[in-house]
């Protein structure tokens, strides 16, 4: 059972994500309304599929008449980065019950990954219950905002680019907190270059996953070379 203190700490950690999800969840719901998804189903999809990028991609692809297999493949490629997040959390869940591990893993997003990773690295008392609560609070905020957006429909005219930049800023803040040491700078630089190149050659769908992988490989190579040079 989670205590009141756990809930308060998790709510405090999740708060920036929840605000961001309101800002981008409502426009996402408006787009879902355009393809006939009502508030109840928008809430349901947001709680189960629960993918900002995936849900944003879905509506224009359906409206454009894209074949189902192409939609699934495009969104699947974008979602592949989730494997990295799941793997990164595995050391923290070594002794955690399977059911809680599954609930936690199934509700990780880019943003909750960042906040929970930052908490695990800076707070020795951060645990799986608080981490899962962060995921659940974030998910409820996302799902409620999607439902609201779907209910209000085209009556809303929101500057989506400005609102979604709020999430980019959150990623930038989390990146700044991780940039300690030369290896991190190498990883960051190579990831940036790899993403740019992948987008230039029209492989934007896998740019985040493949760019991050390139950065990780570069970081490992750099550490290997540095350890040999220092030996």
């Amino acid at each position, binding site marked *: 059972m989670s205590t009141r203190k756990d809930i308060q700490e998790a709510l405090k950690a999740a708060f920036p994500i929840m605000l961001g999800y309101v800002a981008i969840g409502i426009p996402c719901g408006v787009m879902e309304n355009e393809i006939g998804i009502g508030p109840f189903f928008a809430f349901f999809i947001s709680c189960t599929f629960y993918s900002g990028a995936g849900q944003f991609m879905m509506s224009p692809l359906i409206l454009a008449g894209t074949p189902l297999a192409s939609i699934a493949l495009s969104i699947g490629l974008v979602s592949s980065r989730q494997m990295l997040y799941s793997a990164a959390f595995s050391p923290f869940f070594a002794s955690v019950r399977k059911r809680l591990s599954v609930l936690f893993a199934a509700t990780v997003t880019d943003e909750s990954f960042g906040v929970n990773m930052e908490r695990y690295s800076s707070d020795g008392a951060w645990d799986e219950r608080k981490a899962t609560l962060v995921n659940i609070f974030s998910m409820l905020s996302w799902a409620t905002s999607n439902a609201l957006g779907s209910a209000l429909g085209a009556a809303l005219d929101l500057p989506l680019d400005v609102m979604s930049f709020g999430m980019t800023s959150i990623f930038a803040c989390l990146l700044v907190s991780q940039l300690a040491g030369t290896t991190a700078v190498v990883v960051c630089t190579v990831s940036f270059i790899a993403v740019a190149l992948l987008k230039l050659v029209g492989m934007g769908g896998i740019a985040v996953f493949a760019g991050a992988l390139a*950065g990780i490989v570069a970081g490992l190579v750099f550490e290997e070379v540095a350890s040999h040079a220092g030996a």
Partner: protein
Amino acid sequence: MQVHSFWFLYILLLVPMLIFRVVPLLVLKHRDLPPKVRAALGLIPVAAFSALVASDILQLDLWARDPARGLVPIAAVLIVVPVAQKSKSLVWSAVAGMLAYACLSYAVSLLG
């Protein structure tokens, strides 16, 4: 799109997403990982955030339409970085980013 087609698409999207999210954690959590793998897992956060930021700010379609518009997200993130360093706050970073993006977009539209 018909209702049954949409449900089919929903399953096509949901199943891989759950596999991506759940399987790596369940497979790796009980294993005694070699040092190299542990080192790689430790690099995931910085690599993932770098890739996410890069993907968000390098918007080639904006560049193609208007290079000045393409510069807006890059310039805005350069404003976010010192705010993030100083405040260490996700909320203030998000507020600064959205304000910077809105102001820069407005400035570019005035120039255009």
